[in-house]
C-alpha cells in the first residue's frame, strides 16, 4: 500500500480500484451482499426524504378479501397508484412457477390515480398478466401468491385480538411472494425511457422496487381487512412485525441473462460500487457519528448472520465460514482497534485474506457508513450507451484489446467438452431463459450469445490471418460473422466491468452467482438457494413502513434483524 506525502496534515493514500479481472469473476459476483447503493435503498432514501403518505384511494374488498384495492403515493411530486386485484384461488392451481396463469393477487402500478372505469377496464388484463395488453399509463406489472400458512395465521391471530406467533412470522418472513415483476415496455406498458425522464426514477429499477414496496403494504392491509371482517375486536399488526415482514420472491434463470445483455449498464453498476468502496478506503478519518454507526452495524451484522439459516448445504457451509471469519474480525477489533488514520482501508486490508463472502460483506459495511461520500453516486447507476462498433480501429489494436481483456477466454481449452457443456436458450413454453445440456439436448443452434470463449477464439484465429493494419470496417466485410464479438470487445474496452470473466457455458458455471449479483443490486439479502439455478429471497425485510416514512425516519436497515416478540 503506497503512500505519498501531501500538503495536508494527513498523507494521502494511493488506493487502486479493484480491476474487472478481480471483481467480475462469477464466484465473487455470487458473494455480493445488498448495499447502500442497492436500488431498494435508493428508493427508500428518496421516500424518507420526501415523507409522502401512502393512502388507500379505492377499496372494494368483500369479507374474504376478494375484490380490489388501490394504494396511492406521491413520489417526486408524481402520484403513483398500485391497483391490486385479489381473487379466490383453488389450492390446486396455486403455483409459484412462471407457468402459472392464476394468482391470489395481481397488480399494476399506474401513473396517477385511476378512475373507476380504468380500474374496471384493467381488471381483466391485469388478472391475466402476460396475456393482457396495456397502455403506457401502466408502469409495472406483477402478481403474488399468499404464504397460505402465515397469511391464515396472521388473520386468525389479529381477528382474535392477538399478535401472530413470533417464531412462525420470523421463520417465513412474508405474507405474499411475487412470481414476476415486469417493467420497461413489456406487454405495452411504459418504456423505461419514458419513466427515467422523471428525476425520481432515473436510477435503475425504481418503479419495480416501488411496486414491490407497495405490494408489501397491501399484503398487510389485506390481512388486517380480513381479520376485521371476522371480528370487531380485531387488532392491527404490531409495527415491529409490520416492519420485519417483506415480500417473498423466487428468482430463477430469467434474471441471469440481463447481466450479459447489458454490458454498459452493468459496468455502471459495478463502477459505482467500486468507486464507493474506493472513496471509503481513502477516507482519512471517521467522524464520531460514523464510528458509532460502524460499531452498531457490526453488532447487527453478527446477529443477521446468525439468523441467516437455510437448507442448502453449500450456502450453509459458506455462511458458517462467514460467521467464523466475522467473529474473528470482531475479536481482532478488540485486540487491535482501528487506527485513527485511514481506518476503513485498515478494515479492508484486515479481511483481504478471507473468503470472498467476507470481503464482499465488508464492502457493504464500509459503503454503509460513508453515506455522505457515496450517496450521490446513485445518479451514476444508469448508462445511456449501447454497444457500438469502432470501424476505424485496426485489427492489431483489436488484437491488443483481446489480449488485455479476454486472455482468460483464450486460455480455455474447448477441446474439453466440459468447457462448453451447457447452452442458454429461450424456452418456447414461457419465453424464459433456460439452460440446456449441449451434447444431450436439442436447441444449441439457437443458443443465446453467451459462448464468449468460442467467439473470442474464432475471432482470434481470423485476426491472425489478416494484415494488422487493416481497419475493422474492412475486416467486417471479410468476417461479418465476428461483428457481434468485435463490437462487444470494443465496448468492454470502454466499460471494463461489463463483462463477466468466466465461462458461462462450462459445466461448472453456477447461474445462481449471476442471480445473487443482480439481487444484491436490487437490495435483497438472506439468499436462500434452492438449487444452483434459483433462489428464494425476501425483499424489503426490515425496511421502514409507509407509516415510518410519513412520520419521518432514517434509511437504516442494512442486514435487518428480527424484532423481539410482540404482544
Amino acid at each position, binding site marked *: 500500500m503506497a503512500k505519498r506525502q501531501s500538503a495536508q496534515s494527513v498523507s494521502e493514500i494511493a488506493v487502486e480500484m479493484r480491476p474487472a479481472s478481480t471483481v467480475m469473476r462469477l464466484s465473487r459476483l455470487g458473494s455480493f451482499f445488498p448495499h447502500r447503493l442497492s436500488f431498494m435503498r435508493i428508493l427508500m432514501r428518496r421516500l424518507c426524504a420526501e415523507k409522502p403518505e401512502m393512502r388507500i384511494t379505492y377499496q372494494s374488498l368483500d369479507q374474504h378479501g376478494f375484490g380490489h384495492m388501490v394504494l396511492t403515493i406521491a413520489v417526486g411530486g408524481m402520484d403513483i397508484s398500485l391497483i391490486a386485484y385479489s381473487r379466490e384461488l383453488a389450492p390446486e392451481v396455486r403455483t*409459484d*412457477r*412462471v407457468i402459472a396463469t392464476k394468482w391470489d393477487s395481481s397488480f399494476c402500478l399506474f401513473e396517477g390515480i385511476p378512475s373507476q372505469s380504468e380500474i374496471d377496464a384493467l381488471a381483466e388484463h391485469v388478472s391475466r398478466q402476460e396475456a393482457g395488453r396495456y*397502455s*403506457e399509463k401502466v408502469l409495472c406489472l406483477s402478481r403474488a*401468491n399468499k404464504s*397460505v400458512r402465515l397469511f391464515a395465521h396472521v388473520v386468525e391471530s389479529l381477528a382474535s385480538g392477538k399478535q401472530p406467533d413470533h417464531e412462525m412470522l420470523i421463520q417465513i418472513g412474508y405474507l405474499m411472494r411475487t*412470481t414476476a415483476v415486469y417493467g*420497461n*415496455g*413489456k*406487454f*405495452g406498458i*411504459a*418504456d423505461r*425511457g*419514458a419513466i427515467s*425522464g422523471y428525476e425520481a426514477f432515473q436510477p435503475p429499477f425504481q418503479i419495480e422496487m416501488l411496486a414491490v414496496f407497495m405490494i408489501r403494504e397491501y399484503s398487510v392491509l389485506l390481512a388486517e381487512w380480513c381479520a376485521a371482517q371476522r371480528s370487531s375486536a380485531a387488532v392491527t399488526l404490531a409495527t415491529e412485525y409490520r416492519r420485519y415482514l417483506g415480500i417473498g420472491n*423466487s*428468482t*430463477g*434463470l*430469467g434474471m441471469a441473462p440481463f447481466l450479459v445483455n447489458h454490458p454498459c449498464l452493468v459496468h455502471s453498476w459495478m463502477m459505482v460500487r467500486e468507486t464507493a468502496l474506493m472513496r471509503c478506503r481513502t477516507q482519512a478519518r471517521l467522524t464520531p457519528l460514523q464510528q458509532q454507526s460502524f460499531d452498531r452495524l457490526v453488532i447487527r451484522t453478527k446477529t443477521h448472520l446468525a439468523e441467516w439459516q437455510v437448507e442448502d448445504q453449500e450456502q450453509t457451509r459458506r455462511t458458517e465460514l462467514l460467521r467464523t471469519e466475522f467473529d474473528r474480525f470482531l475479536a481482532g477489533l478488540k485486540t487491535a482497534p482501528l487506527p485513527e488514520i485511514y481506518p476503513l482501508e485498515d478494515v479492508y486490508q484486515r479481511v483481504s485474506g478471507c473468503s470472498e463472502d467476507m470481503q464482499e460483506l465488508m464492502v457493504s459495511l464500509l459503503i454503509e457508513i460513508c453515506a455522505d461520500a457515496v450517496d450521490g453516486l446513485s445518479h451514476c447507476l444508469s448508462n445511456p450507451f*449501447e454497444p457500438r*462498433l*469502432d*470501424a*476505424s480501429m485496426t485489427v492489431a489494436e483489436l488484437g491488443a484489446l483481446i489480449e488485455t481483456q479476454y486472455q482468460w477466454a483464450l486460455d480455455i481449452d474447448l477441446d474439453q467438452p466440459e468447457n462448453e457443456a451447457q447452452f442458454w436458450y*429461450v*424456452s*418456447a*413454453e414461457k*419465453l*424464459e431463459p*433456460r*439452460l*440446456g*445440456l449441449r451434447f444431450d*439436448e*436439442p*436447441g444449441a443452434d*439457437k443458443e443465446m*450469445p453467451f459462448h464468449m470463449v468460442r467467439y473470442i477464439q474464432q475471432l482470434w484465429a481470423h485476426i491472425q490471418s489478416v494484415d494488422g*493494419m487493416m*481497419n*475493422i*470496417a*474492412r475486416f*467486417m*466485410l*471479410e468476417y*461479418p*460473422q465476428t*461483428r*457481434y464479438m468485435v*463490437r462487444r470487445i470494443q465496448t468492454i474496452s470502454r466499460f471494463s466491468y461489463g463483462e463477466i470473466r468466466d465461462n458461462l457455458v462450462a459445466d461448472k458455471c453456477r447461474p445462481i452467482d449471476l442471480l445473487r449479483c443482480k439481487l444484491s443490486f436490487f437490495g435483497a439479502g438472506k439468499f436462500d438457494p*434452492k*438449487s444452483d*439455478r*434459483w433462489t428464494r429471497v425476501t425483499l424489503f425485510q426490515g425496511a421502514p413502513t409507509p407509516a415510518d416514512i410519513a412520520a419521518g425516519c432514517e434509511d437504516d436497515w442494512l442486514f435487518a434483524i428480527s424484532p423481539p416478540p410482540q404482544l
Partner: protein
Amino acid sequence: MIRTSLNELLHMTRKAMLGCGFSHDIAEDTGWAMVMASPYQPDAICQLADDLFYYQDHHSEAPVIADNHRITIDNGQLYLQAKPYEMLGFNGILCDWLTASEQPLSDENAVILKLPYMPIVFLGHLLWTASQYNQQVVIEHHGRYLRPDQMLAIKPDTGQNAQEELAEYRITMQNSDDVRIMPAPEPVEIDDTGWSRLSEFAFRSYVPESEASRLSGAGAGLTDND
C-alpha cells in the same frame, strides 16, 4: 393497428431476425432500426416481415451471413447492388463502413447502392447509426440530398415497377450539429398483421424446454400452498 412500446418492438424484431437465422448483432441493430423507423412509417414492420419472407424463400440455410463477394470497393467508395430484402444482411456492415473515415481508407467513405427503392429498415439503420455516432447521414438521390428521416417521411413505392427499376443512392456520413437522436419514448402504432408475422418468425428462435430444465426452474419442488 397495434400499440406497442419501443422496447417491445425492439425485442420482437430482434427475435424475428434471430428466428430467420440472422446473427445477434444484426438482429439487435435491426431492432433499433425499427425503433427509429416505425414512428415515421407504421407499416415498416410489414416491409420487414415481407423482407424476411423473401429471405426465407431465397436463403433457407442458417446462419445468414452477408455475401461480401458482391461488394466492390474503390478508394473508400463501397458499391453494392442488391434486392431490398437482401439488404437485411448488409445493413450493419454498410453502416460500419460509413463510420470508418481514418486511413487507410479515404477521408470520406461513401456507400453507393443500386436498389429498386430504399428499404425502410435500412433507413432506420442509418438513423440509429447517426444517433450512436452523433453524426448526420446524407443520401444523394436523383440530385437531391435528403436525411434518412426525411426519406422515411416519404413512403417508397414498393410496387412491381419499383421492383424492376434500379436507382442509385449515394450515402455519406458527415459531422453535424443537427443530428436526429432518438424518438420520444412513446408507444408506436404499428400494423397488427406485420406484428403477427414477426411473432411467427420470432417463435423460430425459441427452443422447447427440456423436462430436466422444467424440473429445475424457479419455484420447482416446493409446496406452493405452504
